[in-house]
């Protein structure tokens, strides 16, 4: 760095130093992944086994059983004949256009990712709703998770665990979990202070307050968060396919590189269909469980 040039040029780290830093960090991470990669991989083995089992279950069962089960779940959750018919029609169309297997793969991974996101996200949301300090730590992390390009955090994950389903699941969860955490936190914080005070005044314990008052009242907000999480997980399907997650994403990726417009469109539409099914079903279910929000005839 010469004395006079800092006015015109940004004082910069020397190239060699920068390379050293990169090498140092990369090397450290590489040796970390060599050292612990297997342990961590083993840690995820049960999850992998479950993923494979679930995917096989969906693919190997006769298609009409799977369709029947999905349609039954949709009806049980929504109690809406129209919605159920719509779901049936789109599933039949997906199968008719030859995307059944890919759709089942995507469905299985999205279901697992969503369940994991809810299972991890809601407790974190509860935690940060109780402590402002925890919130001030977690919030910036969530910001990073949502804005950091997926490819960037895919690199260390792939370095650590290789290509496959588990890194895909991790990438999807990192991207999709923030809404459920944020909205769980928000929902609990929005519960009327007086209602909570009433619970305390009648001698409710902290867990009675959480499960009897805070969570039920935060539920509409939490459901909105879960809904967002599902949508974001689905939007990650194509990115996840780049690290070897099979499903609807791979044909889309293929059609980008080969310019197969129709193939891309069909698979894209299948993803949209899945998204709409997930969205409508979770929304109508949430609405149905919130009976008290109807009928404000007396304000």
């Amino acid at each position: 760095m010469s004395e006079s040039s800092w006015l015109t040029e940004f004082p910069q780290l020397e190239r060699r130093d920068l390379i050293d830093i990169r090498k140092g960090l990369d090397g450290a991470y590489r040796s970390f992944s060599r050292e612990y990669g297997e342990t961590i991989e083993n840690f995820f083995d049960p999850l992998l086994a479950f993923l494979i089992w679930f995917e096989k279950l969906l693919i190997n069962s006769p298609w009409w059983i799977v369709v029947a089960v999905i349609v039954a779940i949709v009806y049980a959750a929504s109690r809406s004949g129209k919605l159920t018919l719509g779901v049936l029609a789109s599933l039949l169309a997906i199968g008719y256009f030859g995307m059944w297997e890919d759709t089942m793969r995507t469905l299985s991974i999205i279901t697992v990712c969503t369940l994991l996101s809810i299972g991890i996200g809601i407790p974190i949301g509860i935690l940060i709703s109780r402590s402002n300090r925890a919130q001030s730590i977690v919030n910036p992390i969530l910001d990073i998770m949502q804005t950091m390009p997926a490819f960037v955090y895919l690199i260390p994950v792939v370095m650590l665990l290789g290509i496959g389903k588990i890194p895909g699941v991790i990438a999807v969860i990192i991207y999709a979990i923030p809404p459920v955490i944020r909205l769980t936190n928000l929902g609990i914080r929005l519960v009327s202070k007086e209602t909570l005070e009433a619970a305390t005044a009648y001698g409710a314990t902290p867990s009675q307050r959480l499960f009897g008052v805070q969570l039920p009242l935060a539920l509409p907000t939490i459901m909105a968060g879960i809904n967002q999480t599902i949508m974001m997980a689905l939007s990650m399907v194509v990115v996840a396919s780049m690290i070897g997650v099979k499903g609807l994403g791979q044909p889309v990726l293929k059609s980008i590189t080969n310019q197969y417009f129709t193939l891309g469109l069909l698979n894209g539409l299948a993803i949209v269909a899945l998204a709409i099914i997930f969205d409508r079903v979770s929304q109508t279910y949430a609405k149905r469980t919130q009976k008290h929000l109807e009928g404000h005839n007396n304000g």
Partner: protein
Amino acid sequence: MDNTHETPFIEIEGLYQIFGKTPKKIMPLVHEGRNKDDILAETGHTLGLKDINLTINRGEIFVIMGLSGSGKSTLIRHFNRLIDPTQGQIKVEGEDIMQFSIKELTEFRRHKMSMVFQNFGLMPHRNVLDNVSYGLSIQGIDKGERYQSATQWLDTVGLGGYEEQYPSQLSGGQQQRVGLARALCTNAEILLMDEAFSALDPLIRSEMQDQLIQLQNELQKTIIFITHDLDEALRIGDRIAILKDGELVQIGAPVDILLNPADDYVRAFVKDVNKARAVPVKTIMKHTVPLITDSNLKNALEQLSSPSGNHHYGFYQTNEGFQGVLTASRLTSALTTRADGDVLPEDIVNTSTITANMSLETALPHALVSSYALPVVDEEGFYIGELSQDLLAKTINGSIS
């Protein structure tokens, strides 16, 4: 109401509440006698309550009155420790509740006190029945039992048939009835009511006040009632404490507050109160007119002269109750014709009677047409005292001290 002989049921001693980051460190400043504004300017701490001392007796309605910001809602939250004081003692039946463990505190809240909130504090996701039985449900009491009890209380507050409704489907008054039923459902002895009727329309409010008074006559709870409305305080309170900027200015029976305001602040409050409406007859009732119980004319005349001097009339009462006024002149003239005779109906001057709980306003017309003091009788029609026109006029005028 004189309760000095009873042991205090609830007692608060030297209670201070300071809001801020390090309230304990500010206590020396407060004890030095620095005022609220100085402390706020110097340390950024707000002095919420300052040296509160009060005792509440079993079975009374104790009203804490103050304007917004006076600390009344903060104060009521100390009774069940929704807020912990910076310093001071809170005793219930002699036990310092500040020493309670979390478990004891939970039990205390479940069984000893219940609370009614200004904005009802109902749980919107539970129907009316589940709201009312909430206190019992967290105690782990089974559905059948708690629903039975909740249904009963709903009937008591006049909301039978609304069990399946959700709070959002009810009007404000109905919601607060649910809140009241919820508070009664745990059978707690102490009822905390935080501006319970302030969010209601005036008509509904007075309806609820009547209901509360009526319930209290049956249940004899100890009620701590917060309000910013002096009329409400006077109407339902056995005793009233007036809070100003976190300090107690005066504690006393409604009439004390009305007739002997402790300082200019209370005086300003009381000024606009319609005393004729707020003060009941019993508070200025006296017992100076002789009561004649002997039916013999001669003995009756003798009863008219009491140690305090001779009276020109007295009230006549037999075993059947209050009869009317006997004047000295009529008795004397009756004696001239019937030397050893008894009091006959024609000797009695009929006069209208009033009751102790009547307001002065309702007693006023009777007082205007009568030339004698107004006899006050109880429910069975027996004499308990009288209201003199002189005292009535002075009280309404506000010139009594």
